[in-house]
């Protein structure tokens, strides 16, 4: 087989041009995304749209504005599960919610909510802990397609078994079946769970703080960002959180290289739950 290092070099250029096209044509800046996953997703997107190179995809990106939602969905890959990493949801239930219970109104920002699986998981937690009536969850994502699906709360029924196990392991006090109805191969979550959720499009790379939150949940989103963009997001979260507010990141995420990490103190290190350090003064994000 002939080595083709030139082809990889060309692809790196094509990737850069695609990112520029997304930015200049559509206003979405992916230049601060971690390159390995971005390359993989752009390759997949090109293939899915029948383009035989990234350059061909760039052409369509420029000339077919109707493709934008599909491009965003392909670049963001909204995958999630209900009560994924049950130990984390257990920690939220047993350690964080009791502390939030002292607030008359509880605001939670879930950034990067994908198809909403975690938003509804949170709603169930709050419901079971008797806190949902005074809670509001702001569920945001980059992808409008993903948000539309999140709002519907309809999922393949084949997930139900795993999600039920997760729910139990997360300390669920009832049965997950109580929260959905199944028909054919779909399950639909109870509409009532949605009553205190606001879904909104929000780009972590370019949009500002929009609420005062007691808890920010942003799991497995920053893993796709380069160090500077990760750091930028930590500043956003800091500025959004009330004093003593909580931040929950994904189980394998590291903030070891983020300048703003010092603003957060480990609350439950294993579950990646942090608390805004007491001496941190919020500063406006430019």
């Amino acid at each position, binding site marked *: *087989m002939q*080595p*083709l*290092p030139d*082809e*990889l070099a060309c692809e790196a250029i094509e990737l850069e041009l695609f990112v520029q096209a997304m930015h200049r044509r559509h206003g979405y800046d992916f230049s601060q995304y*971690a*390159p*390995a*996953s971005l*390359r*993989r*997703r752009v390759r997949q997107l090109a293939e899915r749209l029948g383009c035989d190179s990234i350059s061909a995809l760039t052409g369509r990106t420029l000339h077919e504005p109707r493709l934008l939602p599909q491009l965003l969905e392909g670049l963001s*890959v909204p*995958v999630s599960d209900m009560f994924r990493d049950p130990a984390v949801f257990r920690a939220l239930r047993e350690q964080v919610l009791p502390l939030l219970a002292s607030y008359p109104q509880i605001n939670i920002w879930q950034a990067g909510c994908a198809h909403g699986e975690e938003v509804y998981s949170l709603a169930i937690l709050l419901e079971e802990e008797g806190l949902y009536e005074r809670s509001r969850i702001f569920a945001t994502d980059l992808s409008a397609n993903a948000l539309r699906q999140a709002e519907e709360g309809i999922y393949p029924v084949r997930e139900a078994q795993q999600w039920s196990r997760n729910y139990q392991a997360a300390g669920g006090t009832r049965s997950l079946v109580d929260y959905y109805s199944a028909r054919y191969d779909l399950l639909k979550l109870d509409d009532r769970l949605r009553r205190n959720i606001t879904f909104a499009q929000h780009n972590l790379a370019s949009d500002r703080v929009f609420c005062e939150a007691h808890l920010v949940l942003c799991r*497995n989103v920053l*893993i*796709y960002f380069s*160090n500077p963009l990760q750091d930028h997001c930590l500043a956003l979260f800091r500025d959004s959180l009330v004093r003593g507010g909580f931040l929950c990141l*994904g189980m*394998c*995420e*590291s903030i*070891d*290289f983020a300048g703003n990490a010092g603003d957060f103190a480990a609350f439950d290190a294993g579950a990646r739950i942090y608390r805004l350090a007491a001496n941190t003064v919020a500063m406006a994000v430019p």
Partner: protein
Amino acid sequence: MKTAAAIVVGCSSGGFDALRVLLGGLDPGLSQPLLVCCHSGSETIELLCELLGRVSPLPVIAAAERHAVRGGHVQLAPTGYHLLVEPDRRFALSTDPRVNHSRPSIDVLFASAAVAWRETLIGVVLTGASADGAEGLRLVRRAGGCAIVQSPVSARVPAMPQAALDRAGADYCVPLADIPPLLNRLCLPRP
């Protein structure tokens, strides 16, 4: 090939025992990083690290997000995430959908490593029941790297090395026991 800069290894069913043989035969003086994607099905990777650490002359640790790939260490993909290597040779994780029914997927690791190390990468596919790793190994070779496949007859489950041979071919197709000395030869500075 040029002097090897890194090794990536993929395995599935039967992989634990195969890894014990492979790691057990490595020269303690190896300075390259060795990255492993093993579909283990276990909840966490820590136990696997500990068990393999008992037979490996090189330290065995879980790959840590954003941290630099470490030479002279065996680094395992954490359970439930795809492991990728950035062009600047730091680790990245992803929760993108399963590939070949697997997360971590060997194809995902190999594809990113092929970009990061190109012709200085060695890819190794061992025993397993799926076709994961076949496309990844093809990309390793395409970037000029070297492909080692455990001979299917010597594999506990031959499907995976066979799929790799069919799709990517190999520079070396040898029994498991021959792989550690081969890696030592390809990786240690020549006297």
